[in-house]
C-alpha cells in the first residue's frame, strides 16, 4: 500500500440533514472506505452522532491524529447535525490541540482556525471564505456519483489523502490545489457549457481559499 499511516485514527463528523451536508458527508464516506481498505481505524460520527457531546467524548477517548469536520460553519465555529456547534472559538478549541484538523466548512479557518493553530504542534486546514460547490438534480441519494460535484470532491478529498500519505499539512494543501487546478483546467476546456463555467468559478474560489493555520509542517504520526 502507499506509505505507512502509523498508529493514528481519523475521526469524521458527517452531519446529514440538508443537501450541503449530504454531499460533503458523502465525500468523506469515500475517504472512510479508502482508509479502512488501508487498515486505518476511522471513527464515523454520522447523522445524529455528529453532536457536540458525542464529538467531544469520542475525541477525548480515542485521541485521533486527524479530525475531519464536515458541516456548516462561520468565522467562529464548525457545526454538526442540525447546525449544532461542535467546536467553538473561545470555548472548546483545545479539543483540537496536538492534532491535524481539516474542516470542510465556510470561513472557519479565519477565527476558529487561527485560535486552534496557536496550540503547539497543531494544524488547522480549512477555508477562509465560504466553501461552495455545484451539484446536479437527482444525486442526493448518491452524491459521490454526481459528475458536476466530482471536481470539488476530488479537490477536497485530496487534503485527507495527502495526510494519510504522511505529507505535511502544507504539502497536502499544495497537492490538493494542484489536483483542483488540474480539474479546473478540464472544466475550462468545456467553457461552452454554462454550467461548467459556473462550476469552474466556484472551484477557483475554493482552491484559492484553502489554507493552513498553525504548524504547517505537522504530519500524522
Amino acid at each position, binding site marked *: 500500500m502507499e506509505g505507512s499511516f502509523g498508529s493514528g485514527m481519523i475521526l469524521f463528523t458527517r452531519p446529514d440533514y440538508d443537501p*450541503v451536508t449530504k454531499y460533503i458527508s458523502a465525500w468523506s464516506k469515500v475517504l472512510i472506505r479508502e482508509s479502512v481498505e488501508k487498515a486505518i481505524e476511522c471513527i464515523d460520527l454520522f447523522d445524529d452522532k455528529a453532536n457536540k457531546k458525542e464529538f467531544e467524548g469520542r475525541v477525548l477517548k480515542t485521541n485521533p491524529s486527524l479530525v475531519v469536520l464536515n458541516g456548516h460553519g462561520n468565522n467562529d465555529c464548525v457545526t454538526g447535525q442540525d447546525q449544532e456547534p461542535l467546536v467553538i472559538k473561545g470555548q472548546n478549541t483545545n479539543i483540537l490541540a496536538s492534532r491535524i484538523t481539516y474542516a470542510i466548512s465556510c470561513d472557519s479557518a479565519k477565527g476558529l482556525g487561527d485560535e486552534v493553530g496557536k496550540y503547539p504542534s497543531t494544524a488547522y486546514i480549512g477555508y477562509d471564505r465560504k466553501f461552495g460547490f*455545484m451539484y446536479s438534480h437527482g444525486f442526493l441519494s448518491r452524491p459521490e456519483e454526481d459528475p458536476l460535484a466530482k471536481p470539488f470532491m476530488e479537490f477536497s478529498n485530496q487534503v485527507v489523502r495527502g495526510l494519510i500519505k504522511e505529507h505535511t499539512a502544507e504539502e497536502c494543501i499544495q497537492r490538493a490545489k494542484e489536483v483542483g487546478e488540474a480539474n479546473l483546467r478540464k472544466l475550462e476546456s468545456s467553457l461552452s457549457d454554462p*454550467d461548467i463555467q459556473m462550476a469552474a468559478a466556484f472551484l477557483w474560489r475554493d482552491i484559492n481559499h484553502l489554507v493552513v493555520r498553525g504548524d504547517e509542517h505537522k504530519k500524522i504520526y
Partner: protein
Amino acid sequence: MNQKNGDKKMSDEEVRKLVLARLSVMSPDVYIAVGSDGSFSRDEMIQRVEAGDEIGREISDIQMEWLRSWKDRLVQV
C-alpha cells in the same frame, strides 16, 4: 471576448448584468451550494443577484474573481 478596454473597471450594475446573463443560460437542474447559506437553483440565484443581497453579491464576486483570474493566467502563459 475582446479586451480592448484593458483594466477598465466595471460598475456594480455592469457586473450584475454580466452575472445575470451567465446565470440565465444555465441549466435549471443544477444547484449551487454556498456553504452555510444553503443551496440555490438557477432561478433562485438570479433572484438573489437581482436583489443584490449578500448571496447575490457573493455569487457575483465569485464569478468576477474567476473571470479576472483569466487575465493573470493568460499573461503567465
